């Protein structure tokens, strides 16, 4: 072995040790041990949201909703008399980031409470982190079946119904139509995402059971942007109705591709996208007749909703949509538990909060919510439709704002 190489190895070893030592000492400096907060400290709530990446659009909506909740509740005196602070990290729509975000929030920053992230894919790993630290986990966006099959006992979904039940009202309506008018064939295209699929398959299965033939059933990975093949299949099949289990951009792309091929279905239902404010511009205004399920409407008359819509419109200039509302609901649910139990910190308090929610109902902007033992809510979603350039509630009949338009006019 030559001397220079020897020297290099020594230098390498010294280097490693120095850096390791520096790292450890730096880290020990920054780690704060969580302590029970005194009654004047703010309550810190830790959240990780996809502010960039695949889920950034709805992720930012959820952020606005959380912030609106914080502002409104602080205006009204705070939680347990203490001001509320939100600590929001960006997980870039990545499952590994969301885990380390919640880990750092709970273990390093010692936050008092946590709110859930957006999207089912991110909810499952983060719920696990919360579970293993014993924290209550109320989330605004994990709605697919499998979230509730993981055996989490700390999880609560802050919306009226899980994904598979979103279209229940629509399914009931279609199947109640007389023989001649009922659709006979369907085409389904869904993103490989548990929420999107949950909604689409919920509707598909109910229709299939009642005798509707499913001609096309496609699944595509989340970052798919080229829908020409799928659109071609759907157009070729000439199915009566098309069901999209979609997020946002994929719905836009799919619809444009279908329009390019001049496919005209009797009914078109897409999850999530049609309720987004930029949807109409994105597809060139050709929205007539498109349906979407929603858990929320700014016009519903629940007492806390009136206040929410008013304040939110003041702050942002436009009424809130579903993502913001789900976030706000999460805040309301946690606040109700905290006020009832009387504590907000890590440790035993969390289990008390969990137990309280298990057995009680909470009034929210989407109505009264209660849950079963897996955290599933017990309610149903509204169906909205684009009519004359506006998106309005059409089902269920007792809360409709306008009549259901069927069959769909050409787009």
């Amino acid at each position, binding site marked *: 072995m030559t001397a220079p190489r020897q020297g290099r190895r020594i230098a390498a070893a010294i280097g490693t040790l120095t850096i390791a030592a520096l790292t450890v000492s730096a880290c020990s400096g920054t780690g704060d041990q969580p302590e029970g907060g005194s009654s004047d400290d703010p309550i810190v709530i830790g959240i990780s949201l996809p502010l960039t990446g695949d889920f950034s659009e709805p992720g930012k909506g959820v952020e606005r909703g959380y912030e609106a909740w914080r502002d409104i509740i602080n205006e009204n005196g705070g939680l347990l008399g203490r001001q509320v602070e939100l600590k929001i990290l960006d997980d870039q729509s990545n499952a590994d980031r969301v885990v380390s975000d919640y880990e750092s929030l709970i273990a390093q920053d010692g936050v008092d409470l946590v709110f859930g992230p957006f999207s089912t894919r991110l909810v499952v790993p983060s719920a696990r982190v919360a579970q293993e630290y014993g924290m209550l986990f109320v989330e605004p966006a994990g709605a697919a079946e499998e979230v509730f099959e993981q055996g989490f006992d700390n999880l609560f979904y802050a919306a009226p119904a899980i994904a598979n039940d979103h279209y229940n009202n629509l399914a009931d309506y279609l199947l109640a139509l007389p023989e001649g008018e009922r659709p006979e064939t369907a085409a389904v295209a869904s993103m490989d995402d548990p929420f999107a699929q949950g909604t689409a398959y919920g509707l598909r299965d109910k229709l299939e059971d009642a005798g509707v033939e499913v001609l096309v059933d496609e699944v595509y990975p989340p970052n*798919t942007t080229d829908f020409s093949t799928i659109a071609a299949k759907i157009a070729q099949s000439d199915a009566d109705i098309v069901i999209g289990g979609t997020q946002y951009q994929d719905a836009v792309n799919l619809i444009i591709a279908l329009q390019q091929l001049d496919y005209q279905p009797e009914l078109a239902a897409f999850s999530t996208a049609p309720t987004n404010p930029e949807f109409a511009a994105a597809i060139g205004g050709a929205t007539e007749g498109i349906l979407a399920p929603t858990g929320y409407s700014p016009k519903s008359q629940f007492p806390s909703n009136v206040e929410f819509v008013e304040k939110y419109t003041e702050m942002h200039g436009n009424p809130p949509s579903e993502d913001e509302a789900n976030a706000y609901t999460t805040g309301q649910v946690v606040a109700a538990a905290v006020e009832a139990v009387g504590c907000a910190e890590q440790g035993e308090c969390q289990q008390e909060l969990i137990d309280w929610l298990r057995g009680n109902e909470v009034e929210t902007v989407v109505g009264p919510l209660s849950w079963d033992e897996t955290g599933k809510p017990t309610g149903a979603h509204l169906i909205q439709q684009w009519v004359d350039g506006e998106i309005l509630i059409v089902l269920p009949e007792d809360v409709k704002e306008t009549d259901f338009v069927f069959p769909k006019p050409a787009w």
Partner: protein
Amino acid sequence: MLLGGLYALLAAGLTLYFGIMRVVMIAHSAFLILAAYLAWWFNRETGIDPLVSLIVTVPLFFLTGVVMQRLLISRLKPLTLTMMSVLLTFAVALIIEGALGFFFTGTQRRIPLPYASASLDFLGAQVPVVKLIAFGLAALALVLLFVLLKYTRFGQALRATIQHPEAARLVGINTDRVAGYGFGLGLATAAIGGTALSLDATIYPSLHWHWIGPLMAIIVVGGLGSIPGAAIAALLLGIAQSLLQLPLGPTWAQTVFYIALFATLMFRPQGFFGGRLAQRF
């Protein structure tokens, strides 16, 4: 098949880099996406059709290419040039992706065009207008490139540099400068390709990885250093992909590129349509 035209243009650009400087330019597709983003941003800020942005992006990219070659690539030691160029251009690709994500965020973008959903009836099939325009643009660029290389003095100097650098120098061609211009030319094709892409595609910062795989496969199958070879391979593989899309679905159809890549390596590593540079490098 329309996609094949775009592939051919991009593969031609890649071949230019390799032919002139033996540089494997992994960042080519990153520049492609950059051009698409610039077209989108241009359209968003001014509302004018993105094709107009070509007036700015093509010269800009050309200059960038020349600068890149002079400042970065020429610093690499000739012995390990090809290997290090891979790493260096890989680094450049990462930087571009990061910068795009930084300035435009990771949200997927699409240009809302008034003629986006229009289609023409062509031999019984509905062909979207935007895809036709993209193909036309790519084809036009390829033709211009071909004319440039074959009939102009600069083109001849370029080809001489590709085929025999020492001889070219002896004849008095300033190979360094020509190399720089060649690089710029390659990036200019990326600008055109990217703008064409922006018409009908949804773009996001990490999209370039989606393109680099097929592009690499094309130049390996076509044989390194041969522009016609790359073009043929691009069209063939592009058609194969389209044909397979209906039975297999878009994701599995993409594997045709990789299968072709591995098959070429197993049986004929120097490529099938290779020019004089085809070699196991």
